């Protein structure tokens, strides 16, 4: 052990970091060495000065109380976490179906409310056509042109209009 190491051991002795046997052996060595004695005395004095000059920093609360508070906070947070545990399967199922349903309903409602009134394009639909037959024995077919400019009712009813017309003309 060189000199520097021995001086470090003396410093450790002053700081109380050595075991009992180490401290006893070092004390004997200090007694035999005047230089080490002087170093031990000066370090001991220095430590005393530092200890006296250090401002006391008391804890606002006692140590036990401080740690108890931390433990209580941890417990409280753990119990809160337990309360927010995953929902039961039934409620999870309900949430799974209800949430999208509510969402879709809201969108539909919004679209319905925002639906603008149909613009008036001036197009008349042919919904006003009415047809009444006096006899079920006559078959009819109806036809409307694409532009609704001509509506046709074809009757399965034969008329000799040429002869009729001639007779009317002769009348």
């Amino acid at each position, binding site marked *: 052990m060189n000199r520097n190491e021995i001086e470090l051991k003396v410093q450790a002795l002053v700081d109380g970091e050595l075991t009992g046997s180490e401290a006893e052996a070092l004390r004997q060595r200090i007694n035999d060495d005047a230089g080490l004695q002087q170093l031990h005395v000066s370090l001991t004095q220095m430590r005393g000065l530092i200890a006296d000059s250090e401002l006391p920093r008391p804890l606002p609360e006692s140590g036990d109380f401080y740690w108890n508070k931390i433990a209580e906070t941890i417990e409280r947070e753990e119990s809160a976490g337990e309360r927010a545990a995953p929902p039961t399967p039934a409620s999870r199922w309900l949430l799974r179906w209800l949430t999208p349903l509510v969402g879709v309903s809201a969108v539909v409602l919004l679209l319905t409310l925002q639906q603008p009134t149909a613009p008036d394009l001036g197009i008349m639909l042919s919904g006003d056509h009415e*047809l009444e037959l*006096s006899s079920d024995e006559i078959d009819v077919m109806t036809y409307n042109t694409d532009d609704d400019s001509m509506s*046709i*009712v074809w009757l399965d009813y034969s008329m*000799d209009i040429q002869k009729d*017309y001639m007779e009317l003309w002769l009348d």
Partner: protein
Amino acid sequence: MANELETSFAMTLLRRHNMNQLAFLLALLFFAGGGWVSAQADSISLNARLVLGTGKEKQGSKKVSESIHKRLAKVFKWVHYYQLSSKKLTIEDAKTMTSKLSKNASIKVSNQKNSKVSVSLFSGGKMLLQKTQTLRSGHYMVLAGKSTGDSAWFIVLSKSN
């Protein structure tokens, strides 16, 4: 009743604004003319034509107008369309008029306001059908059926100008 109101309104104008007699006369004519126009607007004038559709050409027979020919030929197989008779019907509002198109075929047309007409087709005094629709200018209502041989009858109704 409407004319009385119009006259009363015109007299009020004359008194309040010291209108001269010429202006009063013009105002009176304006209101009276409006009443006449509104009365005319309620009546409807229709053309009802009896048409024969056939594949054979008939010399001397009157052909239908190009507009009707084009429309019928676009739908039906027949090439020639001849107008056997044509009747013009002017029907007042909420009134009905009957017209004989051939010896056996006749129609009864009712004016149901706003160009809506109801047409009943009769054959030999028996009603076959009744068709009701709005008939606008340039539009046609056609009632049709088979006739003797390879021919067909058409009753074409349109709004006359």
